[in-house]
């Protein structure tokens, strides 16, 4: 191998530099987010928590397509409870604190869903309420 003396230290420096974010944070991923459980005390969701954790975005997309594109506006019944297929009307009824529930993980994972560009969070909806 030619130029062993420069190539090997060069590679070592490169690897160190690329992994700098890991070293910089002391090999810790920071505090793991703990999204707030529904403040109204509801324990049941439309699916088990583990499934919701993994696939809530898929479910939301399915609901959206079903409601908007296939006029499937009928509600879903889980465990004897009716849930309208809607972020604003179903999810946020229990998970009423978007900042402490949605944002907690999304900020940690640096995910920026565009739901709230149009959909109103409970706080926003209450900010401009009927005055009379």
């Amino acid at each position, binding site marked *: 191998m030619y130029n062993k003396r420069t190539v090997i230290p060069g590679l070592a420096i490169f690897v160190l530099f690329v992994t700098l974010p890991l070293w910089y944070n002391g090999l810790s991923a920071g505090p793991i987010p703990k999204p707030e459980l529904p403040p109204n005390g509801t324990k049941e969701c439309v699916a088990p928590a583990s499934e919701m954790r993994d696939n809530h975005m898929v479910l939301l997309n399915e609901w*959206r397509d079903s409601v*908007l*594109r*296939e*006029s499937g*506006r*009928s509600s879903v019944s889980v465990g004897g409870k009716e849930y309208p297929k809607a972020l*604003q*009307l179903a999810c946020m009824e229990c998970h009423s604190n978007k900042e402490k529930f949605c944002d907690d993980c999304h900020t940690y994972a640096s995910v920026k869903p*565009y739901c709230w*560009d*149009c*959909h*109103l969070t*409970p706080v*926003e*909806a*209450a*900010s*401009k*309420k*009927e*005055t009379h």
Partner: protein
Amino acid sequence: MDNQRRKFLKMAGATALAGISAPAVVKLTASPALASSAPAGHGAATQDSHAQPAAHGEEAPKGVRLGLLIDMRKLYGKPELMDKAIAACNKVHNIPHYDDRKNEIKWIWKTPFENAFVDQSVYHSSKETKENDFLVLCNHCDEPPCVRVCPTKATFRDEKNGIVAMDYHRCIGCRFCMMGCPYGARSFNWFDPRDNIKEYNPKFPTRMRGVVEKCNFCGERLAEGLEPACLEAIKETGAIVFGDINDPNSEISQVLAKEHTIQRNSSLGTKPSVFYIV
């Protein structure tokens, strides 16, 4: 040597000729097979053409097609009723208000006769026609040009009820639909609409900056068993009738059967689902 070249040229010529004539030969030999299948096809075609004249070129109605009828006779001289219907719609759908008309968002609005019915003569029109505004909204056409031009299928015709709906998740704000719509029923959000909404309806989303929006025939209210917001607001006048125009027993079909109605720019062939008694 010479002999071989001569042979090669002959073969090349014959091959070229065969290649050129091959399509013709295939066509000639294949035509009897086509001819034998033709009578069946003709038979089917004649059956179709029998069905057509009965309906005088009109397609046989199939499925639900929601329509709306506005009886302007009940609204003449009462612009406040129209404003009430418009305000109800604006409130239910979180529609922003802009003072500058350049930016305005309209789902249902008022416009003079000559703007609403551009293909109708206004020569010697009546006093009522001249002095009154007309209530207009998306026509939820059976042949919607906006749907044809949308590159992302963000706007589409719902086959289950005939509503020309929008999926704001898909809209990229190209505004082709605004060019396509001959009724001006679509508005573009030049700004974040939230800054100009006075009070929110917490049950409905807003839109975001950069999407086109329009009337949705209150699809979300119909699902709850409610009537369109504009109709509900002025229900006592009976000026607006809503229902399935393909169902001969619906209220709207009965009014359509009894009264002479007009549609906006029906000559364009968009087949509007909004009817007017003027």
